[in-house]
C-alpha cells in the first residue's frame, strides 16, 4: 500500500484510521452484542428496566422455550430444505443456461439477458398475489414446492448473469479439444466448463442460499401454517399481538444467524466478488 505512510510511536496505534475503524466496528457490533446477550438472560430479566448490560445469571431458558414451547426446530428444517433444494436447482439450471447464453451462438440473447436483469430487480410485491392464487388453485399452498419454485425462478436471473460472466473468460480451446475428443455437449459442460466456473458457482450459490434463507414476503403469504413456516415467518409470528417474547425471539435469531454468518465468512471472497465484478462485467 503505497498510500499508507509509515507511522512512528503511538501514532502507529492511535490515528484517524484506527479510531474511525474502531467506531465503525462498535456501531456494527453493539446491536449484535445486544442480540446475543439478551438471548442468554432469564426470560424475566429480558424486560428489566434498567436493563442488565451483562447477563447475570446466564440462562439457556430462552433456547429451551424456542425449541420446546415453540417448534423452532421445525422452522429450521423447513428453511434448510427449501433453501438447499432451491440453491441446487438454481445452480443446475443456471449453469447450462449461463453456458448457452455465454458461449453458444444464439440469436437474440442480448434482449434475453436484459429481460433477465429486469426480472431480478422486480419488486416481489408485484407477483405475490397472482402467485398466491396460482398456488392455491393447484393446491400447493403450505408445501415446500410453494417456495422452492418461486425462489428458484427469482434467483435464476442473477445466477445466470454471474455464471455467464465467469464462462466468458474460459479459453475457447479447452472446449474445442473436448468436442474433438467426441465428448457430448453436457459432458463438455460437466468436465471442462464447470471446473473453470467453480468460483462463479460458489458466488451464485451463496447469494441464492442467503436470499432463500432471509426471504419473508412470499414465505409469509404462501406458507403460514405452523408446519411449513420458514425461520423469518416463524420469528415474526412468535408470541401474540400484545406480548413480544423477545428472549425467545433472540435465542431463535442467534441459532439462525450463526449458519449463514459462518457460510458468508468462510466464502467471503466469493461474496465480495459477487457483489462487485461478477455483477458489473459483461
Amino acid at each position, binding site marked *: *500500500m*503505497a498510500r499508507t505512510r509509515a507511522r512512528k510511536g503511538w501514532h502507529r496505534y492511535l490515528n*484517524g*484510521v484506527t479510531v*474511525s*475503524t474502531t467506531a*465503525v*466496528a462498535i*456501531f456494527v457490533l453493539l*446491536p*449484535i452484542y*445486544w442480540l446475543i446477550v*439478551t438471548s442468554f438472560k432469564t426470560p424475566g430479566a429480558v*424486560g*428489566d*428496566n434498567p*436493563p442488565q448490560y451483562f447477563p447475570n445469571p446466564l440462562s439457556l431458558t430462552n433456547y429451551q422455550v424456542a425449541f420446546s414451547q415453540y417448534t423452532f426446530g421445525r422452522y429450521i428444517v423447513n428453511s434448510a430444505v427449501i433453501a438447499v433444494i432451491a440453491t441446487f436447482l438454481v445452480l443446475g*439450471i443456471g449453469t447450462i*443456461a449461463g453456458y*448457452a*447464453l455465454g*458461449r*453458444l*451462438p*444464439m440469436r437474440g440473447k442480448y434482449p434475453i439477458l436484459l429481460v433477465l436483469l*429486469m*426480472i431480478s430487480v422486480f*419488486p*416481489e*410485491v*408485484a*407477483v*405475490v*398475489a*397472482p402467485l398466491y392464487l396460482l398456488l392455491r388453485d393447484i393446491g400447493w399452498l403450505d408445501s415446500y414446492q410453494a417456495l422452492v419454485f418461486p425462489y428458484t*425462478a*427469482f434467483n*435464476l436471473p442473477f445466477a*445466470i448473469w454471474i455464471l455467464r460472466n465467469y*464462462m466468458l473468460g474460459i479459453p*475457447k480451446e479447452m472446449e474445442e479439444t473436448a468436442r474433438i475428443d467426441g465428448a457430448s455437449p453436457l459432458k463438455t459442460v460437466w468436465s471442462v466448463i464447470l471446473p473453470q466456473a467453480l468460483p462463479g458457482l460458489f458466488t451464485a450459490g451463496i447469494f441464492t442460499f442467503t436470499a432463500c434463507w*432471509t426471504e*419473508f*414476503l412470499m414465505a409469509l403469504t404462501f406458507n403460514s401454517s405452523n408446519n411449513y413456516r420458514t*425461520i*423469518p415467518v416463524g*420469528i415474526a409470528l412468535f408470541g401474540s399481538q400484545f406480548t*413480544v417474547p*423477545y428472549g425467545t*425471539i433472540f435465542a431463535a*435469531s442467534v441459532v439462525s*444467524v450463526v449458519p*449463514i*454468518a459462518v*457460510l*458468508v*465468512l468462510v466464502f467471503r471472497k466469493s461474496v465480495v*466478488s459477487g457483489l*462487485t*465484478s461478477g455483477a458489473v462485467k459483461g
Partner: protein
Amino acid sequence: MATLGVVPSVPATGGDAATPRPAGEHDVNRKRLARLGWSFSTPAFLVIGAFTIFPIGFSVAMSLSHVNVSGSGFSLNGFTGSNYSTLVHAPQWRYALGFTVVYTIVTVLVEVILGTCIALVLERLTKGRGLMMALLLVPWSMITVISAELWGYIYDASYGVLDQIFHAVGLGQPIFLGTPTPAIVAMMVADIWKTTPFVAIIVLAGLVMLPEELYEASEMDGASGWTTFWRVTFPLLRPTIALAVLFRVLQAFGLFDLPFVLTQGGPGYSTTSLAVLGYQVMFQDLNFGPGAAVATSTAVLVLIGCLLFLKVFRAQVGEEGS
C-alpha cells in the same frame, strides 16, 4: 493481464468464433450449436416464465379488471380503470408513495455517503482489513425480520436500552416508535445499520481495483487528500458507486420486511410503504383489484426509475458503463 500479441484474444461472444473450417460445415455447426443453446436454456426459461413473467402479466391484468375472489376460486370480470382511480384518490396510497420515495432517497443517500467514507478508511487500514470486511458482512447476511425485532427491542418504550441511554445523558425519554416522525427516523437508522456495510463493501472492492500509479502521480503533483479524492478517486469510482445506488434504490423501493415487523406500518399509516400497503389491501382486506394496482404501479415506478438511472449513468460514464 495477457501480454499483448502473445496470447490470442478471446472474442467476447465466445461461440461466435469457430476455428477455420470449410464454409458449409461451419454453418451447419453454428446452427447445431444455436439449437443446443436453446435447449440448454429451456429449463431456465420455463421456470422463470411460469413463476415470474406469467404472474407479472397476470398482476397487470388483475389491476385492470373487476376481480371477484371467493373461497373456491377467482374470476376477472371485464376491463376497468377503476382500480387505478381508486388508488389516485386514496390518501393512503398518496402517502405511501411519498413516504417510499422520501425513505428511499434519504436512506440511500446516507448509506452511500457513509459507506464511501467507511470504504476510504478501511482502504488505508494496514492490518485487520479482512476481519473488518467479515464483520461488515454480518449485518448484510442477517435476516431482515431479525434485525427488525432487534431494533424493536432497542427502541422499546418501557424497557428499551436506547431509552435508558437518552435518559442517562439528559435527553429526556423520547418515544421512538409511538409517534410518526421519530418512528420514521428510527426505521431509517435500523435500515442504515443493516445496509451501509453492503455499500461499504462494494465501494471498497472498487477502490482496491483502482490503479496505484494515479495516486502516486497525484501525490507528486502535490495535491491534497481532498483534491485527490474529488479529482482522481471519485470519478474513477463513479461506476461502482452508481451500481451500489442502483441496487439500493431498487431494494429500498420494495421495502416490506422492516416496517411490517418493526412498526406494522404505524403509528397510523406513517410508515406504510407501497409494498406494505399492497400486502394489506390484498391479503388483509382481500381487495385484489386495487391491491394489484398498488403492486403494478410500484413495479412500473421501479422500472421507470431504473431506466432513467441507466440513461443518466450511461451518459456520465460513456462506453465504460455499457
